[in-house]
Each structure stands twice: as C-alpha cells, then as structure tokens.
C-alpha cells in the first residue's frame, strides 16, 4: 500500500521525503531526551538542578502548564457536546489530539520527576484521601482514559481503517456516545485542574502559595480551573494557526477561531477579576497574618515583574484584545492575544511551582535561585518533540479538520 493511500481523501500533504525530514528533526529532540533519561534513571535525580530547596522545578511547572493548556480538549468538548455550540466541530478533533499529547506528555515527565517511578501505582493502593495530589493522580489517569476513548474514533476515521466495516461501525458508535465522554471528561477535568491549584493553596507552610478558601478548597483551586478554561481554547486555536502557517493550508475557518478567542476572552475577564481579588486578599490578609509583607515575596531574580507580566501582559492585554470585536477580527492580533493569554498561564504556573519554594520562610534563611539543567530541558523537549510527532502524524493521516477540503477548494 502506498503511503499516499493513508492520507485523507481530497486533501494535500507534503511529500513523504519532506515529512520524513520533519519527523527526523522531532526525533532529534526525542534522542536528546533519551540521553537525559539514561542519566536520570542511571544515576539518580542528582543529575538535575533540583535540590532540597527546589523540590519542584521545570518538570512540575511544565506539567502544570501543559495540563492547563490541554484543558482546551475537555472544555471544547463541553462547549460542543454539552452546550451544543456546533461551530466547534471544526476544531474538536484537534482539541482531542492536543489534549491527548498534553496529558500523556505530563505523565511522561512525571515518570522522570518522581524518585521511585516503579512505585507510581502506590497512589492508588495507598491513597491518602487528604492529599490534593491523590485527587490529581486519580483524576488525571481517569481523564487520560477518556482522552484515549475520544482519540480512538479519530484514528478509526483513517481512510484505510475506515474501509473495514467493523471499524467503521465502531467509530460510528463511539461518536454516538461522545457526549457522555465529554461530560465525564468535564467532570474529571474540573476536579484535577482544581486540585492542581489546591495542591499549592493548601501549603500552609509556604505563605507565597497559601490561600484562604471555601471549605477544603483554597481559592487557587477555582483559579486554576478558570485560568485553564480561559487559556485552553486559544491554545488549541494557536496550534491550528501554527499548523496552517507550516503547512500553507487553511484548516479551520477564521470564524471558529474568532469564536474561540471570544470565549477565551470572556473567561479571561472573569478569571482576572477573581485573580486580582485573590492577589489583593493574599497581600492584605494571608501575608500579614503569617508575618510577611508583599515586598518580601520577591527578590531580584523572582521579581514583581513576573506578577505584572502575568496579570498585565498575559492577562489584561489579551483580555482587551479578545473582547473587542474589531481587534479580534484581525488575525495577527487574535494570534498575539492567544499567545499572550497562554504566556499568562505559563507564568502563573511557573511561579506557583518554583517561586513558592524560592521564598525563604525562616527569617534567617536565604533566597536561592533555580535554573533547570540540560537533563531537565532535554526530557522536556523530548515531550514537546513527542507531542509534535503525534500531532504531525494525526494531521497527515487522519481527517482532523472537517472543513479543510472546502476551505482549500
């Protein structure tokens, strides 16, 4: 069978040689990560720049980031299948694929991050119901199963696989049950996105992260959900735009992108309202109560500029662009706003994972700074390479975009 026969009917893809070269580049990233993985598993986590003060570093930050950005998968599913916004059918397949790589990628990094990866299953066996992390372990793995179930019918849509009656019928049945899985995915995602935030808000020994809250849920629980659903849709839109630029083909109607931008803009406004309230209540409530001032939470390396970058450049600015119809109608502004909204969530997750640990809590202790080692970068880029690989393969061999033919006619 020719490779050409695997490509969806009626669409154009680059030559096999060009595609192989692209895959080769991605495999170089994977190779870099494998070298780092060899050292990490061979010698221990001492080959990273993590230490007794920075127990969390790049990996946890990236895990939080990709899970937040991967929220586009569950949220688009929720909007399409539960709220019935049909326009999103143009991007829902990509949302599932991106969600899948984000979550599998996050689990891949966790396999490096935990000191005893072979004991990972203890999370189920010896589950501590008081720990937010337990909830994260359960929900993320359950949601990954949902993502797999959502990914299967897309794979079954492949031109050759779809010819087989069994697989065709299977795909059809999967599609029928999809609203159910969208609902399950939404339920699970709300909880683990929240618990990832709760993980930090409950740290009553770390005033930088500590938050007041509602019952057992600190405010970070709700803020992480809101920021994830605000940035997730535009991240998917951004990925589709990058795919359009690199392939030179129109894949998603601009109206769908604008709609995603509008949805994200609205959610970003809601999120920012609560996030600014959160910063104010933290600075005026939690910090003085624990004996700290706002200024003491920052130093030259972990400066206040990170907070302003998150709230201003990565918050207010994209919110204004996305909420102004004339601005989001310009593609370059829409994409810029999307990238800035993603930047906002990146900075937010980074400071919660790393700056939380950098702030000295004992008065006689000192600030330390953390920069990731090449082994941490290598494994992280391996995850990025793997993600690009899966998306590239899906784009080439699966009918991800239902309007592609029409848009390029």
């Amino acid at each position, binding site marked *: 069978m020719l490779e050409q026969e695997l490509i969806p009917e009626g669409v154009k893809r680059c030559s096999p040689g060009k595609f192989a070269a692209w895959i080769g580049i991605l495999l170089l990233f994977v190779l870099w990560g494998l070298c780092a993985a060899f050292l990490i598993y061979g*010698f*221990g*986590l*001492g080959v990273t720049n*993590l*230490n*007794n*003060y920075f*127990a*969390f570093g790049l990996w946890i930050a990236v895990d939080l980031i990709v899970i937040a950005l991967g929220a586009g998968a569950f949220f688009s599913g929720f909007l399409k299948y539960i709220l019935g916004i049909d326009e999103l059918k143009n991007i829902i397949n990509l949302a599932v694929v991106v969600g899948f790589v984000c979550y599998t990628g996050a689990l891949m990094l966790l396999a490096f*991050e*935990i*000191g*005893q990866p072979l*004991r*990972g299953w*203890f*999370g189920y*066996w*010896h*589950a*501590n119901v*008081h*720990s*937010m*992390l*337990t909830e994260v*372990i359960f929900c993320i793995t359950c949601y990954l199963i949902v993502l797999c179930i959502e990914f299967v019918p897309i794979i079954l849509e492949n031109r050759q696989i779809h010819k087989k009656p069994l697989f065709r019928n299977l795909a059809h049945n999967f599609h029928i049950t999809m609203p159910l899985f969208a609902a399950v995915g939404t339920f699970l995602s709300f909880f683990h996105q929240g618990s990832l935030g709760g*993980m930090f*808000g*409950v*740290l*009553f*020994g*770390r*005033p930088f992260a*500590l*938050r*007041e*809250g509602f*019952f*057992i*849920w*600190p405010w970070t629980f709700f803020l992480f959900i809101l920021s994830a659903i605000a940035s997730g849709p535009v991240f998917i839109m951004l990925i589709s735009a990058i795919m359009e630029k690199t392939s030179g083909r129109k894949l998603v109607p601009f109206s769908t992108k604008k709609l995603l931008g509008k949805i994200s803009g609205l959610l970003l406004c809601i999120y920012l309202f609560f996030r600014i309230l959160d910063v104010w209540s933290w600075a005026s409530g939690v*910090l*003085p*109560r*624990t*004996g*700290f*001032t706002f200024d*003491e939470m920052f130093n030259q390396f972990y400066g206040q500029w990170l907070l302003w970058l998150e709230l201003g450049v990565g918050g207010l600015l994209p919110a204004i662009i996305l909420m102004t119809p004339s601005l989001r109608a310009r593609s370059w502004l829409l994409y810029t706003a999307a990238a800035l909204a993603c930047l906002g969530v990146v900075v937010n997750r980074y400071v919660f994972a790393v700056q*939380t*640990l950098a702030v000295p*809590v*004992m*008065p*006689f*202790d000192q600030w*330390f700074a953390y920069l990731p080692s090449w082994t941490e970068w290598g494994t992280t880029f391996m995850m990025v390479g793997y993600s690009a690989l899966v998306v590239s393969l899906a784009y080439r061999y699966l009918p991800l975009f239902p309007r592609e033919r029409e848009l390029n006619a």
Partner: protein
Amino acid sequence: MAETMQIREEFEIKWGMVIDVDKCTGCGACQVACQAENNIPPSTQSFNRLESVHWLYVYKLDNGLPYPDNDIAYLPRPCMQCGNPPCVTVCPVIATTKEEEGGIVSQIYPRCIGCRYCMAACPYHSRVFNWFDPQWPRGMDKTLTPYTSVRPRGVVEKCTFCHHRFQLAKRRARAEGRDPHHLREEEYIPACAEVCPTGAIVFGDLKNPRHRVHQLAQSEHAFRLLERLGTDPQVYYLSRRSWVRRQGDNHVQKDQQRGE
C-alpha cells in the same frame, strides 16, 4: 484557610526537644552524631544543605549589626515533629504519618514514591531527598548501625528523633517489668541530645511534669520556629537574647514587639 486539610491530634506522650541557643557553640557534634546514628552516608557536600542528605542542620544567625554590636547565634534544626504537620496531609501515599509514637512524624521509606510534595510543604526544610544512591567508601560501611535502615535513592527522609532508640527503651522497660509508656527522662534520648558537649539540647516528654522539657518549654525565653504558620512544633528554643527570639518568626511592622 482550608482548615480541614490540617490534622490536629493529641497523643498521650509528646516527645519534644528544648534547644538552648545561647549554649550552642555551633560545633556540629549533633550533626555528626545524627549522621552516624542514622546511617546517613558520608558526603563531600555535607555542609551544602541544598544537595546533601542531613537530618539536622545548624544554621548561623546574625543580628545584622556592625561591630562592636554584632552578635551571632547557632540554631540546630532537627525535624520540628509538628503537632499540625504540613507534610503529612499532602503525602499522596501515606508514606509519612503522625501517630501514637509520642507524636513523632514518621517516614516510611519503602512506600515513599519520591514525589517531594512533603518537601515543598515543609517550611523548615527538615526533609531531604536522596538525589543519588547512598555510598559508603570502602571500610566505612563497617560504621553502619543495625538499628536504622539505609535508604535507597529516590526517597525522602527526615529526622525521627532517633525513633529506634524509643523502641529500644520501651523494650528494655518491658523486660524490666516497667510500663513502657512512662519512660524515665534519661531512658530515651536522641543521639544529638546525648552528644551535645554543652548540654544545649534537652529531650523528653513535653507532657510529663517530671521531664525537664516540660518546664523549659514554658520558660519566658522559650520560642518555637514559625509559630504563626500554625505548625505547632514539638521543638522549642531558648534564648535570653531578644533578637534571637525575634528571628524565630516573621513579623510585620505593626507587631514590632512580638518575640521580644
């Protein structure tokens, strides 16, 4: 605050420590004794608290004033065995507990998955991670004691108030027909307290009026580290110097007098 995420349990015995900072010379004997007693592998990085495995670390405090008013103090920091431990609730696999063992916060090495969430939760940096495999140079393995298990790489460990000594003391009391839950003061002492040349570290049951720590903890010069966070440590410090007491916690402008 998310109060329900915290654990507050009272136990019949509450092992505690009172460390007189004014008596501590910073000699480091407690650190060495702790290393030897608990099979902590030797390291060229022993004084690097970011990289090394250590259960007890001696911090140097400075009053920040220029000569001739400059003053320093040394503050040994074991695990605080918090009454409300921030580390216990967060562990996803119940690898660390606070139970009927005199309120000592345990660490179950074979169950720890090495996620280090407990390290992130502890404001005292009492928890350390095994970044590499533990190694003893040839011959030094003879110094290993049979009482404390060695830990593999990839797990978190911490001070246990030499819990094995508690077990031995209870066994001895049982053998002698005495109540193992009412030990005499000198029967169970961690290695650091035993070895301290100036007697700066006093150990005992904080709830037992016959133990010295019971009175010392109530001294007007006593303070605990980061009390405002609500961790309720079982380790107390003593100092007659107000600037030392003040460095036991963080204070904002309006509570200038706190700790003095």
